[in-house]
């Protein structure tokens, strides 16, 4: 199966890249844009018994390495079987 992990800075942690991108979008005329966040996507193939097991494994990987729980939150998607 295919795992996709989305990692973003937590709400309340200053995302300076997001702020800079937001200012640039405003500069291009999209004044209606707000709360831009820049994150990271990590994808990989995974052999797991079922989607539940895969989600548990990937969450453990996020807690150990893929995200830093002090500053980041993550969302896991599992596709295929």
């Amino acid at each position, binding site marked *: 199966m295919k795992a996709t992990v989305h990692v973003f*800075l937590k709400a309340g*942690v*200053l995302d*300076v*890249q997001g702020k*800079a991108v937001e200012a640039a979008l405003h500069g291009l005329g999209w004044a209606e844009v707000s709360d831009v966040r820049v994150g990271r996507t990590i994808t990989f193939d995974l052999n797991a018994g079922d989607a539940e097991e895969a989600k548990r494994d990937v969450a453990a990987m996020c807690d150990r*390495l*893929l995200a*830093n729980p*002090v*500053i980041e939150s993550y969302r896991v998607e599992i596709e295929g079987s």
Partner: protein
Amino acid sequence: MKAAVVVFPGSNCDRDCKTAIERSTGARVDMIWHKETALPAGLDLIVLPGGFSYGDYLRCGAMAALSPVMPAVAEAAARGVAVAGICNGFQILCEAGLLPGALLRNAGLKYVCTPIALEIANLQTRFTAAFGARREAIMTIGNGEGHYFADDPTLDRLEGEGRIAFRYLANPNGSARSIAGILNEAGNVLGLMPHPDRSFDADLGSADGALVFQSVMASA
């Protein structure tokens, strides 16, 4: 007196640290490749140097925190050996869980490289005792991700327990409570964004960094 500098792939201040410690204290300094799983016996100081370990992949310090040498560093820290993480070394100590918090992209988005004035926030630590009654020091910073972050309860605890060792007099990067350097609970692990290794001789603009290494060796 004996010190070790850990060398990660991408470290670039490792030799500066060796020279700085040798000239400041006369200690013997071993360079330890990150793949080692044991450290030399009888160390008084372990330094994790600045640089861009693993190219800052994933997050600064995240990959180095999982290097084979790190369990030995954690074990030495637990035994009370002085450990100093400078710049990237500070990021590695946070990622390894040996210090609380994390280091974010600088608030101004820029890499900041400049001599900077620091307040010595706690003069009674293993890393600051040699400053005597001096409250201020000049050291050089050079980082893009030196913006210290921790949640408010953690920051309150650091302040309440005297674990903020150094603060910026003029905050260059948005660091919470102007933090430039913090200690672990036992006081033997220091994370420091400014570089004592770039400020250990008057010819470099400041010799104040030498006092950090001299403090450690005086307590050894």
